[in-house]
């Protein structure tokens, strides 16, 4: 139950894009049409719901102060949290590379449709952001952490697909010249974020 509520919260209330502005660069660059936006969204959800639990395990069994206790008494004092950033990003980067190779090997058609977006995921702020928020919020167990990763991914997917849909329609409207393209996209994102703030009150 807690997991479901967390998923809903991370999709609507703590939306990665509209509440924290994470993953903005690829959000703005890839939201020109719905199909590619959907592809990237799925890839991000996939990577996010796998790297968050992996980093959760690392955080709790290796990095946190006293986390190495299972190795023996003499390790109980060790605190490796300084390295958490390095480890997290290394996990994410190697994981994206791995996913890329696996998809290329087993599903060339999916690979060619995702193509350039896969390596981009490594530097998508929402992925690292997910891991860092996980570290900050100290989730109770790995299931909750997975739920959080999955929910954040879905939230990101929802945002980018919605944005792409709006931008496809925007082609036909008469936007002031200097505002065309990037400018209006920012303002639209702002308005969508305002809309999403109305979810802030819900409790599940």
């Amino acid at each position, binding site marked *: 139950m807690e997991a479901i509520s967390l998923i809903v919260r991370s999709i609507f209330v703590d939306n990665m894009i*509209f*509440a*924290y*502005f*994470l*993953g*903005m*660069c690829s959000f*703005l*660059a890839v939201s020109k049409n719905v199909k590619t936006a959907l592809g990237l969204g799925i890839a991000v959800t996939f990577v996010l719901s796998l790297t968050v639990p992996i980093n959760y395990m690392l955080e709790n069994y290796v990095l946190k102060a006293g986390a190495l206790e299972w190795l023996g008494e003499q390790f109980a004092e060790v605190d490796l949290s*300084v*390295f958490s*950033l*390095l480890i997290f*990003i*290394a996990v994410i*980067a*190697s994981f994206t*590379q791995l996913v890329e190779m696996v998809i290329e090997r087993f599903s060339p058609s999916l690979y060619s449709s995702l193509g350039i977006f896969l*390596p981009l995921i*490594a*530097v*998508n*702020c*929402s*992925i*690292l*952001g997910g891991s*860092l*928020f996980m570290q*900050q919020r100290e989730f109770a167990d790995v299931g909750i952490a997975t739920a959080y990763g999955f929910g954040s991914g879905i939230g990101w997917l929802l945002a980018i697909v919605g944005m792409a849909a709006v931008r496809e329609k925007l*082609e036909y409207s008469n936007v*002031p*010249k*200097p*505002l*065309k*393209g*990037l*400018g*209006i*996209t*920012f*303002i639209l*994102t*702002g*308005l969508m*974020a*305002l809309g999403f*703030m109305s979810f802030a009150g819900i409790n599940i």
Partner: protein
Amino acid sequence: MALSNKTKAVLLGPLNKNNPIIVQVLGICSALAVTSKLEPALVMAIAVTIVTAFSNVIISMLRNTIPNRIRIIVQLVVVATLVTLVSEVLKAFAYDVNKQLSVFVGLIVTNCILMGRLEAFALGNGPWPSFLDGIGNGLGYGWILVVIGFVRELLGSGTLLGYPIIPKSFYEAGYQNNGLMMLAPMALLLIGVIIWIHRSQNKELQETA
């Protein structure tokens, strides 16, 4: 030392015509959430400038030895190391600001400015121009952040760097702080407006599509 024209372009270009935020669209991710007050915006700007400059130098020195296939991991490790250093320094000397910035210090790692500049510039140029490019882009990123932080703090809470600016008599006459400015979406709207102004000045940047 007089700067040659090329060096000048490398250093000053990112401040205006080639600005990382409003033209190259890099580094929006961590930029917006820290600008509700001026102080964290300033700290963030300085931190990003330092990290960009030094990671540019390091990667530029290593550029001939890094195998192409694993360069992204190498770049990320270099950047993550620098960011860890910056974050430890912040924790030691500016604990409050560090608390305010929370995860966004760590997120400098995935700030697209860093990867973008490393890929686009440092991999093909020597250490000294790369250093200038890093400084230039850091400053170009910084001034946008500071402008947004300035507007949001002034209109949102009537203070600058924590000092009250709007005189008391205004409040007595019925003036109220604009609470909307403190909300996250306003940062996006402000950037949109900055882009609007900037592009009506620089017509060649306008998009036709």
